[in-house]
Protein backbone atom coordinates (compact mmCIF):
# COMPACT_ATOMS: atom_id res chain seq x y z
CA UNK A 1 0.00 0.00 0.00
CA UNK A 2 1.65 3.22 -1.16
CA UNK A 3 1.02 6.12 1.19
CA UNK A 4 1.21 9.65 -0.19
CA UNK A 5 2.93 12.40 1.79
CA UNK A 6 -0.54 13.95 2.39
CA UNK A 7 -1.73 10.66 3.96
CA UNK A 8 1.19 10.65 6.38
CA UNK A 9 0.56 14.29 7.25
CA UNK A 10 -3.13 13.63 7.82
CA UNK A 11 -2.47 10.63 10.10
CA UNK A 12 0.16 12.63 12.01
CA UNK A 13 -2.32 15.46 12.43
CA UNK A 14 -4.99 13.10 13.79
CA UNK A 15 -2.39 11.68 16.19
CA UNK A 16 -1.29 15.21 17.20
CA UNK A 17 2.32 14.49 16.26
CA UNK A 18 4.63 16.93 14.56
CA UNK A 19 6.90 15.15 12.12
CA UNK A 20 9.76 16.61 10.17
CA UNK A 21 9.26 17.12 6.44
CA UNK A 22 12.39 15.11 5.64
CA UNK A 23 11.10 12.11 7.65
CA UNK A 24 7.84 11.84 5.70
CA UNK A 25 9.15 9.48 2.96
CA UNK A 26 10.45 7.04 5.61
CA UNK A 27 7.13 7.09 7.46
CA UNK A 28 5.25 6.62 4.20
CA UNK A 29 7.38 3.60 3.38
CA UNK A 30 7.29 2.03 6.88
CA UNK A 31 3.61 2.61 7.50
CA UNK A 32 2.78 1.36 4.00
CA UNK A 33 4.62 -1.88 4.70
CA UNK A 34 2.92 -2.26 8.10
CA UNK A 35 -0.54 -1.77 6.54
CA UNK A 36 0.32 -4.29 3.80
CA UNK A 37 1.40 -6.73 6.47
CA UNK A 38 -1.73 -6.39 8.59
CA UNK A 39 -3.89 -6.56 5.46
CA UNK A 40 -3.25 -10.33 5.55
CA UNK A 41 -6.11 -10.41 8.04
CA UNK A 42 -8.55 -9.67 5.21
CA UNK A 43 -8.16 -13.26 3.96
CA UNK A 44 -9.14 -14.80 7.32
CA UNK A 45 -12.62 -16.25 7.46
CA UNK A 46 -14.29 -14.57 10.41
CA UNK A 47 -17.93 -15.02 9.39
CA UNK A 48 -20.06 -15.33 12.50
CA UNK A 49 -17.10 -14.72 14.85
CA UNK A 50 -17.76 -12.35 17.71
CA UNK A 51 -15.02 -9.73 18.13
CA UNK A 52 -13.10 -10.27 21.37
CA UNK A 53 -13.97 -7.72 24.04
CA UNK A 54 -11.81 -9.09 26.87
CA UNK A 55 -9.11 -11.78 26.82
CA UNK A 56 -10.84 -13.67 29.64
CA UNK A 57 -14.34 -12.84 28.41
CA UNK A 58 -15.05 -11.06 31.66
CA UNK A 59 -17.16 -8.01 32.07
CA UNK A 60 -15.90 -4.78 33.52
CA UNK A 61 -15.92 -4.71 37.32
CA UNK A 62 -17.75 -1.70 38.69
CA UNK A 63 -17.31 0.11 41.96
CA UNK A 64 -19.46 2.40 44.05
CA UNK A 65 -19.30 6.01 42.90
CA UNK A 66 -17.72 7.59 45.96
CA UNK A 67 -14.55 9.58 46.53
CA UNK A 68 -11.67 7.24 47.28
CA UNK A 69 -8.69 9.44 46.41
CA UNK A 70 -7.23 12.12 48.63
CA UNK A 71 -6.34 15.53 47.21
CA UNK A 72 -2.68 15.43 46.17
CA UNK A 73 -2.75 18.31 43.74
CA UNK A 74 0.52 19.86 44.89
CA UNK A 75 2.40 16.59 44.71
CA UNK A 76 1.05 15.80 41.25
CA UNK A 77 1.69 19.30 39.93
CA UNK A 78 5.37 19.00 40.77
CA UNK A 79 5.65 17.14 37.47
CA UNK A 80 3.80 19.78 35.47
CA UNK A 81 5.77 21.95 33.04
CA UNK A 82 3.93 25.14 34.07
CA UNK A 83 1.44 25.81 36.86
CA UNK A 84 0.10 28.88 38.57
CA UNK A 85 -2.24 29.12 41.55
CA UNK A 86 -2.86 25.37 41.39
CA UNK A 87 -3.80 25.49 37.69
CA UNK A 88 -2.06 24.00 34.69
CA UNK A 89 -0.97 26.68 32.24
CA UNK A 90 -1.37 26.34 28.46
CA UNK A 91 -1.16 28.91 25.65
CA UNK A 92 -4.19 31.20 25.36
CA UNK A 93 -7.11 29.26 23.84
CA UNK A 94 -9.85 31.93 23.68
CA UNK A 95 -9.00 35.40 22.35
Amino acid at each position, binding site marked *: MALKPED*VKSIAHLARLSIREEDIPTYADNLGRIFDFVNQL*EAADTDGVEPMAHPLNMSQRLRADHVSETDQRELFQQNAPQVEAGLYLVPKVIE
Partner: protein
Amino acid sequence: MFDKTLAELSRALEAGETTSVELTRAFLERIEKYQGELNAFITVTADEALAAAQEADAKRAKGEAGPLTGIPVAQKDIFCTAGVKTTCGSKMLDNFVSPYDAHIVEKMNEAGMIMLGKTNMDEFAMGSSNETSFFGPVKNPWDTSKVPGGSSGGSAAAMAARLAPATTGTDTGGSIRQPAALCNLTGVKPTYGRVSRYGMIAFASSLDQAGTITVTAEDAAMLLNVMSGFDERDSTCVERDVPDYTKTLNDDIKGLKIGVPKEFFDDGLDPQVAERVRDALKVYEGLGAEIVDVSLPNLGLSVPTYYVVAPAECSSNLSRFDGVRFGHRCDDPKDLLDLYTRSRGEGFGDEVKRRIMTGTYVLSAGYYDAYYLKAQKTRQLIAADFTRAFEQCDVLMGPTTPTAAFGIGEKVDDPINMYLNDIYVNGVNLAGLPAMSIPMGFVDELPVGLHIIGNYFAEERMLNVAHRYQQETDWHKKLPSKFA
Protein backbone atom coordinates in the same frame (compact mmCIF):
# COMPACT_ATOMS: atom_id res chain seq x y z
CA MET B 1 27.21 -14.36 46.45
CA PHE B 2 26.34 -12.58 43.18
CA ASP B 3 25.80 -15.84 41.29
CA LYS B 4 23.30 -17.25 43.78
CA THR B 5 19.60 -17.71 43.18
CA LEU B 6 16.96 -15.86 45.20
CA ALA B 7 16.17 -19.04 47.07
CA GLU B 8 19.85 -19.47 47.98
CA LEU B 9 20.19 -15.84 49.05
CA SER B 10 17.06 -16.14 51.15
CA ARG B 11 18.55 -19.14 52.98
CA ALA B 12 21.95 -17.39 53.37
CA LEU B 13 20.29 -14.35 54.96
CA GLU B 14 18.22 -16.57 57.22
CA ALA B 15 21.34 -18.49 58.30
CA GLY B 16 23.21 -15.26 58.98
CA GLU B 17 25.86 -16.03 56.35
CA THR B 18 25.39 -12.60 54.85
CA THR B 19 23.46 -9.40 55.46
CA SER B 20 21.26 -7.29 53.25
CA VAL B 21 23.77 -4.43 53.42
CA GLU B 22 26.56 -6.74 52.26
CA LEU B 23 24.45 -8.11 49.39
CA THR B 24 23.23 -4.70 48.34
CA ARG B 25 26.79 -3.33 48.30
CA ALA B 26 27.99 -6.29 46.26
CA PHE B 27 25.33 -5.80 43.58
CA LEU B 28 25.78 -2.02 43.52
CA GLU B 29 29.49 -2.57 42.94
CA ARG B 30 28.75 -4.89 40.04
CA ILE B 31 26.36 -2.36 38.54
CA GLU B 32 29.02 0.33 38.79
CA LYS B 33 31.60 -1.96 37.20
CA TYR B 34 29.50 -3.13 34.23
CA GLN B 35 26.94 -0.38 33.59
CA GLY B 36 29.24 1.41 31.12
CA GLU B 37 29.55 -1.71 29.03
CA LEU B 38 25.94 -2.96 29.17
CA ASN B 39 23.77 0.14 29.72
CA ALA B 40 21.30 -2.08 31.60
CA PHE B 41 20.14 0.66 34.00
CA ILE B 42 18.54 4.05 33.47
CA THR B 43 18.63 5.02 37.15
CA VAL B 44 20.60 3.51 40.04
CA THR B 45 19.22 4.22 43.51
CA ALA B 46 22.34 3.39 45.54
CA ASP B 47 21.70 5.60 48.60
CA GLU B 48 18.06 4.59 48.95
CA ALA B 49 19.05 0.93 48.49
CA LEU B 50 21.66 1.01 51.26
CA ALA B 51 19.27 2.76 53.65
CA ALA B 52 16.57 0.18 52.89
CA ALA B 53 19.10 -2.63 53.37
CA GLN B 54 19.96 -1.37 56.84
CA GLU B 55 16.28 -1.32 57.69
CA ALA B 56 15.88 -4.87 56.34
CA ASP B 57 18.77 -6.09 58.49
CA ALA B 58 17.23 -4.43 61.54
CA LYS B 59 13.90 -6.09 60.74
CA ARG B 60 15.63 -9.45 60.49
CA ALA B 61 17.40 -8.91 63.83
CA LYS B 62 13.97 -8.41 65.39
CA GLY B 63 12.75 -11.68 63.86
CA GLU B 64 10.37 -9.93 61.49
CA ALA B 65 11.89 -11.03 58.18
CA GLY B 66 10.02 -12.84 55.41
CA PRO B 67 11.63 -14.97 52.69
CA LEU B 68 12.45 -11.95 50.49
CA THR B 69 13.38 -9.43 53.18
CA GLY B 70 16.72 -7.80 52.39
CA ILE B 71 17.03 -9.22 48.88
CA PRO B 72 17.86 -6.72 46.12
CA VAL B 73 15.73 -6.37 43.00
CA ALA B 74 15.89 -4.16 39.90
CA GLN B 75 12.62 -2.77 38.55
CA LYS B 76 11.91 -2.22 34.88
CA ASP B 77 11.60 1.53 34.37
CA ILE B 78 7.97 1.12 33.29
CA PHE B 79 6.92 0.70 36.95
CA CYS B 80 6.25 3.90 38.86
CA THR B 81 8.49 4.32 41.89
CA ALA B 82 7.64 7.10 44.36
CA GLY B 83 10.24 9.86 44.43
CA VAL B 84 12.37 8.17 41.77
CA LYS B 85 12.59 9.10 38.09
CA THR B 86 10.34 6.82 36.01
CA THR B 87 11.06 7.29 32.30
CA CYS B 88 9.60 4.29 30.46
CA GLY B 89 12.69 4.58 28.25
CA SER B 90 11.40 7.83 26.73
CA LYS B 91 12.51 11.43 26.42
CA MET B 92 8.85 12.19 27.08
CA LEU B 93 9.27 11.13 30.72
CA ASP B 94 12.94 11.99 31.20
CA ASN B 95 11.87 14.58 33.79
CA PHE B 96 9.10 12.53 35.44
CA VAL B 97 9.44 11.74 39.14
CA SER B 98 6.61 9.43 40.05
CA PRO B 99 4.40 10.63 42.91
CA TYR B 100 3.43 7.05 43.81
CA ASP B 101 4.52 3.39 43.68
CA ALA B 102 3.17 0.80 41.26
CA HIS B 103 1.25 -2.04 42.93
CA ILE B 104 4.06 -4.55 42.46
CA VAL B 105 6.66 -2.08 43.76
CA GLU B 106 4.51 -1.51 46.83
CA LYS B 107 4.23 -5.29 47.34
CA MET B 108 7.97 -5.84 46.98
CA ASN B 109 8.73 -2.98 49.37
CA GLU B 110 6.29 -4.47 51.89
CA ALA B 111 8.12 -7.79 51.55
CA GLY B 112 11.33 -5.95 52.46
CA MET B 113 13.02 -6.18 49.05
CA ILE B 114 15.69 -3.62 48.22
CA MET B 115 15.35 -1.71 44.93
CA LEU B 116 18.76 -1.27 43.26
CA GLY B 117 17.43 0.90 40.44
CA LYS B 118 15.39 1.09 37.27
CA THR B 119 16.32 -0.95 34.23
CA ASN B 120 16.58 0.18 30.64
CA MET B 121 13.85 -0.80 28.15
CA ASP B 122 12.50 -0.12 24.70
CA GLU B 123 10.66 3.19 24.65
CA PHE B 124 7.19 2.65 26.16
CA ALA B 125 7.92 -1.11 25.87
CA MET B 126 7.64 -0.92 22.07
CA GLY B 127 10.44 -2.98 20.65
CA SER B 128 12.06 -6.40 20.61
CA SER B 129 15.70 -5.38 20.83
CA ASN B 130 16.00 -2.58 23.39
CA GLU B 131 17.25 -0.34 20.59
CA THR B 132 14.33 2.10 20.76
CA SER B 133 15.27 3.37 24.25
CA PHE B 134 15.94 7.12 24.48
CA PHE B 135 18.76 6.14 26.84
CA GLY B 136 20.60 4.08 24.24
CA PRO B 137 20.70 0.40 23.38
CA VAL B 138 21.41 -2.31 25.97
CA LYS B 139 24.09 -4.90 25.18
CA ASN B 140 23.63 -8.64 25.54
CA PRO B 141 26.14 -9.92 28.14
CA TRP B 142 26.58 -13.13 26.12
CA ASP B 143 27.92 -11.10 23.19
CA THR B 144 27.94 -7.33 23.49
CA SER B 145 27.54 -6.90 19.72
CA LYS B 146 24.10 -8.54 20.03
CA VAL B 147 20.78 -7.23 21.33
CA PRO B 148 19.48 -8.53 24.68
CA GLY B 149 15.95 -8.66 23.28
CA GLY B 150 13.16 -6.36 24.35
CA SER B 151 11.32 -4.64 25.60
CA SER B 152 12.56 -5.76 29.04
CA GLY B 153 16.14 -5.81 27.70
CA GLY B 154 17.70 -3.91 30.60
CA SER B 155 16.24 -6.32 33.15
CA ALA B 156 17.44 -9.31 31.10
CA ALA B 157 20.96 -7.91 30.63
CA ALA B 158 21.17 -6.96 34.33
CA MET B 159 20.11 -10.49 35.29
CA ALA B 160 22.39 -12.25 32.79
CA ALA B 161 25.43 -10.33 34.10
CA ARG B 162 24.15 -10.83 37.67
CA LEU B 163 23.95 -7.12 38.41
CA ALA B 164 20.82 -7.99 40.40
CA PRO B 165 19.53 -11.29 41.81
CA ALA B 166 16.01 -10.63 40.50
CA THR B 167 14.32 -8.28 38.06
CA THR B 168 10.83 -7.42 36.91
CA GLY B 169 9.50 -7.02 33.41
CA THR B 170 6.31 -6.49 31.47
CA ASP B 171 5.03 -8.59 28.60
CA THR B 172 2.61 -7.11 26.06
CA GLY B 173 3.71 -9.24 23.12
CA GLY B 174 6.65 -11.24 24.43
CA SER B 175 8.65 -8.52 26.19
CA ILE B 176 9.57 -10.77 29.14
CA ARG B 177 9.93 -14.12 27.39
CA GLN B 178 11.91 -13.03 24.34
CA PRO B 179 14.71 -11.21 26.26
CA ALA B 180 14.75 -14.03 28.83
CA ALA B 181 15.35 -16.48 25.96
CA LEU B 182 18.09 -14.38 24.37
CA CYS B 183 19.89 -13.89 27.71
CA ASN B 184 19.60 -17.43 29.19
CA LEU B 185 17.05 -16.59 31.88
CA THR B 186 13.71 -17.66 33.26
CA GLY B 187 11.03 -15.16 32.25
CA VAL B 188 7.42 -15.49 33.38
CA LYS B 189 4.35 -13.73 31.99
CA PRO B 190 1.37 -14.56 34.22
CA THR B 191 -2.25 -14.84 33.07
CA TYR B 192 -3.80 -11.52 32.03
CA GLY B 193 -5.24 -9.97 35.19
CA ARG B 194 -3.20 -12.10 37.63
CA VAL B 195 -0.91 -9.19 38.60
CA SER B 196 -2.18 -5.64 39.00
CA ARG B 197 -1.21 -3.15 36.30
CA TYR B 198 -1.62 -0.21 38.70
CA GLY B 199 1.34 2.13 38.29
CA MET B 200 2.65 0.23 35.30
CA ILE B 201 2.79 2.70 32.43
CA ALA B 202 0.21 1.50 29.92
CA PHE B 203 1.06 0.40 26.39
CA ALA B 204 -1.78 -1.91 25.26
CA SER B 205 -4.15 -2.43 28.16
CA SER B 206 -5.84 -5.63 26.95
CA LEU B 207 -2.43 -7.31 26.56
CA ASP B 208 -0.08 -5.79 29.19
CA GLN B 209 0.96 -7.96 32.11
CA ALA B 210 3.71 -7.66 34.73
CA GLY B 211 6.05 -10.55 35.45
CA THR B 212 9.54 -11.61 36.39
CA ILE B 213 12.97 -12.31 34.93
CA THR B 214 15.05 -14.49 37.24
CA VAL B 215 17.60 -17.32 37.19
CA THR B 216 15.18 -20.11 38.11
CA ALA B 217 11.48 -20.98 38.09
CA GLU B 218 11.71 -21.32 41.88
CA ASP B 219 12.84 -17.68 42.11
CA ALA B 220 9.97 -16.63 39.86
CA ALA B 221 7.57 -18.50 42.16
CA MET B 222 8.91 -16.63 45.20
CA LEU B 223 8.43 -13.27 43.49
CA LEU B 224 5.00 -14.11 42.07
CA ASN B 225 3.85 -15.06 45.57
CA VAL B 226 4.42 -11.41 46.47
CA MET B 227 3.33 -9.71 43.22
CA SER B 228 0.14 -11.59 42.37
CA GLY B 229 -3.32 -11.02 43.69
CA PHE B 230 -6.29 -8.74 43.57
CA ASP B 231 -5.92 -4.98 43.52
CA GLU B 232 -9.04 -2.89 43.12
CA ARG B 233 -7.04 -0.08 41.51
CA ASP B 234 -6.69 -2.13 38.31
CA SER B 235 -10.16 -2.70 36.86
CA THR B 236 -9.00 -5.79 34.95
CA CYS B 237 -7.22 -7.41 37.90
CA VAL B 238 -8.89 -10.72 38.65
CA GLU B 239 -10.35 -11.53 42.08
CA ARG B 240 -8.97 -14.98 42.64
CA ASP B 241 -6.90 -16.58 45.39
CA VAL B 242 -3.16 -16.84 44.90
CA PRO B 243 -1.72 -20.26 45.69
CA ASP B 244 1.76 -20.53 47.23
CA TYR B 245 3.63 -21.14 43.97
CA THR B 246 6.67 -22.58 45.76
CA LYS B 247 4.67 -25.45 47.28
CA THR B 248 3.99 -27.37 44.06
CA LEU B 249 7.35 -26.92 42.32
CA ASN B 250 8.50 -30.45 43.01
CA ASP B 251 5.25 -32.19 42.09
CA ASP B 252 5.63 -35.26 39.93
CA ILE B 253 5.08 -34.66 36.22
CA LYS B 254 4.63 -38.29 35.28
CA GLY B 255 1.80 -38.50 32.76
CA LEU B 256 1.99 -34.77 32.01
CA LYS B 257 0.71 -34.17 28.50
CA ILE B 258 2.90 -31.74 26.58
CA GLY B 259 1.28 -30.36 23.44
CA VAL B 260 3.71 -29.41 20.70
CA PRO B 261 2.04 -27.17 18.08
CA LYS B 262 3.32 -28.00 14.64
CA GLU B 263 3.01 -24.33 13.61
CA PHE B 264 5.89 -23.49 15.98
CA PHE B 265 8.22 -25.43 13.64
CA ASP B 266 7.79 -23.27 10.54
CA ASP B 267 10.29 -22.26 7.86
CA GLY B 268 11.45 -19.26 9.88
CA LEU B 269 12.75 -21.43 12.73
CA ASP B 270 16.52 -21.94 12.91
CA PRO B 271 16.98 -25.75 12.63
CA GLN B 272 19.44 -25.63 15.52
CA VAL B 273 16.81 -24.03 17.76
CA ALA B 274 14.36 -26.76 16.70
CA GLU B 275 16.96 -29.34 17.72
CA ARG B 276 17.33 -27.77 21.19
CA VAL B 277 13.53 -27.97 21.62
CA ARG B 278 13.60 -31.66 20.70
CA ASP B 279 16.42 -32.20 23.25
CA ALA B 280 14.34 -30.50 25.94
CA LEU B 281 11.29 -32.61 25.08
CA LYS B 282 13.46 -35.73 25.54
CA VAL B 283 14.30 -34.57 29.06
CA TYR B 284 10.58 -34.30 29.74
CA GLU B 285 9.91 -37.74 28.28
CA GLY B 286 12.58 -39.03 30.67
CA LEU B 287 10.53 -37.53 33.50
CA GLY B 288 7.47 -39.46 32.36
CA ALA B 289 5.76 -36.78 30.29
CA GLU B 290 3.91 -37.63 27.12
CA ILE B 291 4.31 -35.61 23.90
CA VAL B 292 1.10 -34.84 22.00
CA ASP B 293 0.98 -33.28 18.53
CA VAL B 294 -1.40 -30.35 18.46
CA SER B 295 -2.24 -27.59 16.02
CA LEU B 296 -2.82 -23.85 16.31
CA PRO B 297 -4.06 -23.30 12.75
CA ASN B 298 -4.50 -19.54 13.13
CA LEU B 299 -1.12 -18.85 14.72
CA GLY B 300 0.07 -17.20 11.50
CA LEU B 301 -2.53 -14.48 12.08
CA SER B 302 -1.15 -13.58 15.49
CA VAL B 303 1.53 -11.07 14.47
CA PRO B 304 -0.70 -9.11 12.06
CA THR B 305 -3.53 -9.22 14.63
CA TYR B 306 -1.14 -8.00 17.31
CA TYR B 307 0.04 -5.13 15.10
CA VAL B 308 -3.52 -3.85 14.80
CA VAL B 309 -4.66 -4.34 18.40
CA ALA B 310 -1.49 -3.18 20.19
CA PRO B 311 -0.96 0.04 18.16
CA ALA B 312 -4.67 0.87 18.42
CA GLU B 313 -4.56 0.64 22.22
CA CYS B 314 -1.21 2.43 22.34
CA SER B 315 -2.50 5.37 20.31
CA SER B 316 -5.30 5.74 22.82
CA ASN B 317 -3.16 5.23 25.94
CA LEU B 318 -0.40 7.55 24.81
CA SER B 319 -2.79 10.39 24.09
CA ARG B 320 -2.31 11.31 27.77
CA PHE B 321 1.15 12.65 26.95
CA ASP B 322 0.12 16.11 25.87
CA GLY B 323 2.77 18.37 27.40
CA VAL B 324 0.26 19.86 29.85
CA ARG B 325 0.23 17.91 33.12
CA PHE B 326 3.52 16.01 33.06
CA GLY B 327 6.24 14.97 30.67
CA HIS B 328 8.10 16.83 27.97
CA ARG B 329 6.84 20.23 26.82
CA CYS B 330 8.20 22.00 23.73
CA ASP B 331 9.66 25.50 23.99
CA ASP B 332 7.51 28.55 23.15
CA PRO B 333 4.30 26.90 21.89
CA LYS B 334 2.40 29.36 19.71
CA ASP B 335 -0.99 27.82 20.45
CA LEU B 336 -2.51 24.73 22.05
CA LEU B 337 -2.28 22.56 18.91
CA ASP B 338 1.36 23.53 18.50
CA LEU B 339 1.94 22.65 22.17
CA TYR B 340 0.43 19.17 21.70
CA THR B 341 2.02 18.29 18.38
CA ARG B 342 5.52 19.57 19.06
CA SER B 343 5.67 18.24 22.64
CA ARG B 344 4.65 14.80 21.34
CA GLY B 345 6.77 15.01 18.19
CA GLU B 346 9.87 15.88 20.23
CA GLY B 347 9.12 13.62 23.20
CA PHE B 348 8.44 10.35 21.34
CA GLY B 349 10.98 8.37 19.33
CA ASP B 350 10.48 6.92 15.84
CA GLU B 351 9.08 3.49 16.75
CA VAL B 352 6.58 4.96 19.21
CA LYS B 353 5.44 7.51 16.61
CA ARG B 354 5.13 4.73 14.03
CA ARG B 355 2.90 2.72 16.37
CA ILE B 356 0.79 5.71 17.41
CA MET B 357 0.23 6.52 13.73
CA THR B 358 -0.58 2.88 12.90
CA GLY B 359 -3.09 2.84 15.74
CA THR B 360 -4.58 6.19 14.79
CA TYR B 361 -5.08 4.98 11.23
CA VAL B 362 -6.69 1.64 12.10
CA LEU B 363 -9.10 3.37 14.49
CA SER B 364 -9.98 6.23 12.16
CA ALA B 365 -13.39 6.69 10.56
CA GLY B 366 -13.87 4.38 7.59
CA TYR B 367 -11.09 1.98 8.58
CA TYR B 368 -12.23 0.82 12.02
CA ASP B 369 -14.25 -2.17 10.75
CA ALA B 370 -11.64 -3.29 8.26
CA TYR B 371 -8.81 -3.29 10.76
CA TYR B 372 -9.68 -3.09 14.44
CA LEU B 373 -12.95 -5.01 14.40
CA LYS B 374 -11.48 -7.60 12.03
CA ALA B 375 -8.43 -8.02 14.30
CA GLN B 376 -10.62 -8.52 17.38
CA LYS B 377 -12.33 -11.31 15.42
CA THR B 378 -9.09 -12.99 14.34
CA ARG B 379 -7.97 -12.61 17.94
CA GLN B 380 -10.96 -14.69 18.95
CA LEU B 381 -9.90 -17.39 16.44
CA ILE B 382 -6.36 -17.42 17.85
CA ALA B 383 -7.64 -17.73 21.44
CA ALA B 384 -10.05 -20.53 20.41
CA ASP B 385 -7.11 -22.48 18.91
CA PHE B 386 -5.37 -22.44 22.27
CA THR B 387 -8.54 -23.51 24.10
CA ARG B 388 -8.90 -26.46 21.72
CA ALA B 389 -5.24 -27.41 22.13
CA PHE B 390 -5.59 -27.43 25.92
CA GLU B 391 -8.35 -30.04 25.62
CA GLN B 392 -5.58 -32.43 24.53
CA CYS B 393 -2.72 -31.42 26.83
CA ASP B 394 -1.66 -29.74 30.10
CA VAL B 395 0.99 -27.38 28.75
CA LEU B 396 2.24 -26.33 25.33
CA MET B 397 5.90 -26.18 24.39
CA GLY B 398 8.00 -24.85 21.56
CA PRO B 399 10.78 -22.38 20.86
CA THR B 400 10.50 -18.88 22.38
CA THR B 401 12.24 -17.21 19.44
CA PRO B 402 13.02 -18.32 15.86
CA THR B 403 16.75 -17.62 16.32
CA ALA B 404 19.29 -16.70 18.99
CA ALA B 405 20.09 -13.00 19.60
CA PHE B 406 20.59 -10.90 16.47
CA GLY B 407 23.10 -8.09 16.01
CA ILE B 408 22.58 -4.55 17.26
CA GLY B 409 21.45 -2.48 14.26
CA GLU B 410 20.62 -5.56 12.18
CA LYS B 411 16.82 -5.20 12.07
CA VAL B 412 16.37 -1.61 13.12
CA ASP B 413 15.39 -0.36 9.62
CA ASP B 414 12.98 -3.19 8.92
CA PRO B 415 10.00 -3.05 11.28
CA ILE B 416 8.23 -6.11 9.85
CA ASN B 417 11.31 -8.28 10.20
CA MET B 418 11.67 -7.05 13.79
CA TYR B 419 7.98 -7.76 14.52
CA LEU B 420 8.26 -11.31 13.16
CA ASN B 421 10.84 -12.11 15.82
CA ASP B 422 7.86 -12.36 18.19
CA ILE B 423 5.91 -14.84 16.06
CA TYR B 424 5.78 -17.55 18.77
CA VAL B 425 5.07 -15.22 21.69
CA ASN B 426 2.44 -12.71 20.45
CA GLY B 427 -0.44 -15.22 20.36
CA VAL B 428 -0.22 -15.87 24.10
CA ASN B 429 -0.90 -12.21 24.89
CA LEU B 430 -3.81 -12.07 22.44
CA ALA B 431 -5.33 -15.07 24.24
CA GLY B 432 -4.42 -13.79 27.74
CA LEU B 433 -2.64 -17.02 28.72
CA PRO B 434 0.31 -17.44 31.11
CA ALA B 435 3.63 -18.45 29.55
CA MET B 436 7.32 -18.53 30.29
CA SER B 437 10.71 -19.04 28.71
CA ILE B 438 13.45 -21.12 30.30
CA PRO B 439 17.07 -21.73 29.24
CA MET B 440 17.36 -24.86 27.03
CA GLY B 441 20.89 -24.68 25.65
CA PHE B 442 22.96 -22.78 23.13
CA VAL B 443 23.18 -22.21 19.39
CA ASP B 444 26.62 -21.02 18.26
CA GLU B 445 27.43 -20.03 21.84
CA LEU B 446 24.29 -17.92 22.22
CA PRO B 447 21.46 -19.00 24.54
CA VAL B 448 17.97 -19.95 23.32
CA GLY B 449 14.77 -20.49 25.29
CA LEU B 450 12.10 -23.13 25.67
CA HIS B 451 8.62 -21.62 25.57
CA ILE B 452 6.15 -23.16 28.02
CA ILE B 453 2.53 -22.02 27.77
CA GLY B 454 0.08 -22.85 30.55
CA ASN B 455 -3.69 -22.86 30.69
CA TYR B 456 -5.52 -19.87 32.24
CA PHE B 457 -4.41 -19.34 35.87
CA ALA B 458 -2.33 -22.53 35.75
CA GLU B 459 0.90 -20.72 36.73
CA GLU B 460 1.37 -23.31 39.46
CA ARG B 461 1.56 -26.16 36.96
CA MET B 462 3.68 -24.18 34.50
CA LEU B 463 6.25 -23.28 37.19
CA ASN B 464 6.26 -26.88 38.41
CA VAL B 465 6.96 -28.10 34.86
CA ALA B 466 9.79 -25.57 34.44
CA HIS B 467 11.27 -26.34 37.86
CA ARG B 468 11.43 -30.08 37.18
CA TYR B 469 13.41 -29.42 33.99
CA GLN B 470 15.79 -27.17 35.91
CA GLN B 471 16.38 -29.98 38.43
CA GLU B 472 17.52 -32.19 35.51
CA THR B 473 19.57 -29.65 33.55
CA ASP B 474 22.02 -26.88 34.33
CA TRP B 475 21.56 -24.55 31.34
CA HIS B 476 20.07 -21.90 33.64
CA LYS B 477 23.23 -21.93 35.76
CA LYS B 478 25.50 -20.93 32.87
CA LEU B 479 26.93 -17.43 33.05
CA PRO B 480 28.59 -15.40 30.29
CA SER B 481 32.31 -15.92 31.01
CA LYS B 482 33.12 -12.22 31.07
CA PHE B 483 30.69 -11.66 33.95
CA ALA B 484 31.28 -14.88 35.88
